[in-house]
C-alpha cells in the first residue's frame, strides 16, 4: 500500500486516536470518517472508471479493504494518505479491462479557458493593453466574514459540483482534504504542471462564482 507514498507524512496523534477508536468498534467514528472522505474518494474513483455506479462500488470496496487491513495500520503514513492508497489500488484493479476514460484528456481544451473574461481587460490598441478596465472588488476583511456565511458556502459547494470531473477532483483533494500536490499527482497519474493547470482552472471558476455572489 505504500506505492502512493511520495512523501508520506507520518500519522499524527489525531489519526492514531481515530484508528484506536475504529479498532474498538466505534461506529460513530467510522461513520464520520466515511462522511469526511466520501466525496473525494468518489471523485478520484471516477477518474479511473466509466460510470458513477462503478465508482461507488470502488469506494465501497476501498472501505471494506480498509477494514480488512486496519489491524496492520502502523501509522507510518497519515490515515488519509493510506485511505487514498487503498482506493487507488481498488480503482486501478477495476479499471483493468475497462479502458480508463481519462477525463484528463480534455485538459488541453480546459487549459485554453481564461481565468477571467478577456473583455475585462483593455484591448491591444489601448494605451495599456492587458490591464484591467475596472478593478476587481477589494473583498478585504469581508471575504473572511463571508466565508463563514451559510449562503457563501452553498455558492462555493455548487460551483465545485459544477466543475468538470478532473478539476473537481483536484480542488477537492488539494483545498478541501489538504492532500499535497505530490499525493494528487501520484493518485491521479498526472504531471505536476497539469495538476496546477487543473487547480488553477478550478479555483478561478469558484472565484468567479463567489465574485458573482458577493459583488452581484
Amino acid at each position, binding site marked *: 500500500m505504500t506505492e502512493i507514498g511520495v512523501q508520506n507524512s507520518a500519522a499524527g496523534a489525531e489519526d492514531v486516536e481515530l484508528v484506536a477508536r475504529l479498532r474498538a*468498534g466505534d*461506529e460513530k467514528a*467510522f*461513520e464520520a470518517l*466515511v*462522511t*469526511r472522505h*466520501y*466525496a473525494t474518494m468518489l471523485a478520484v474513483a471516477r477518474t479511473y472508471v466509466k460510470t458513477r455506479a462503478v465508482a*461507488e462500488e470502488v*469506494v*465501497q470496496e476501498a*472501505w*471494506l479493504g480498509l*477494514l*480488512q487491513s*486496519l489491524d496492520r495500520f502502523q501509522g507510518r503514513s497519515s490515515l488519509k494518505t493510506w485511505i487514498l492508497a487503498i482506493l487507488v489500488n481498488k480503482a486501478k484493479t477495476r479499471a483493468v479491462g475497462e479502458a480508463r476514460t481519462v477525463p484528463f484528456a480534455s485538459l488541453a481544451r480546459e487549459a485554453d479557458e*481564461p*481565468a*477571467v473574461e*478577456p473583455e475585462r*481587460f483593455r484591448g491591444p490598441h489601448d494605451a*495599456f*493593453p*492587458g*490591464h*484591467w478596465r475596472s*478593478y*476587481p*472588488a*477589494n*473583498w*478585504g476583511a469581508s*471575504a*473572511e466574514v*463571508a*466565508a*463563514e456565511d451559510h449562503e*457563501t*458556502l452553498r455558492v*462555493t*459547494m455548487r460551483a*465545485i459540483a459544477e466543475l468538470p470531473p478532473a478539476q473537481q477532483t483536484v*480542488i477537492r483533494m488539494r*483545498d*478541501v482534504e*489538504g492532500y499535497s*500536490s505530490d499525493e494528487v499527482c501520484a493518485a491521479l497519474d498526472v504531471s*505536476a504542471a497539469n495538476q*496546477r493547470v487543473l*487547480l*488553477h482552472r478550478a*479555483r*478561478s471558476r*469558484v*472565484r468567479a462564482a*463567489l*465574485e458573482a455572489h458577493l459583488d452581484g
Partner: protein
Amino acid sequence: MAEHISCQEVIELVTDYLERALPSEEASLFEQHINFCDGCEWYLDQMRATVAAVGRIEEEEVPPETRDKLLTAFRHWKRT
C-alpha cells in the same frame, strides 16, 4: 523575458505563484506587478479567499444505502 507583465498575464500566474512553482525571474516580475497594481493585489486576495472558502465547505451526504452497507460491514468486522 519581458520587463513587465500585464494584469491579464498576472491572473493566469496566480496559482503557480501561490504554489511556488514560478521560476525566480517570473516570480519577481509577478511581485513587482502586485506591488504597484491594486487590481491585481485584490485579485490575488480574492483567490486566497476562494481557497479559504473551499476549505470550509460542508461534507456532502453519503447515499443512505451506501452508509448502511458500510455500517453493516463495520459491525461484522468488529465481531470477527
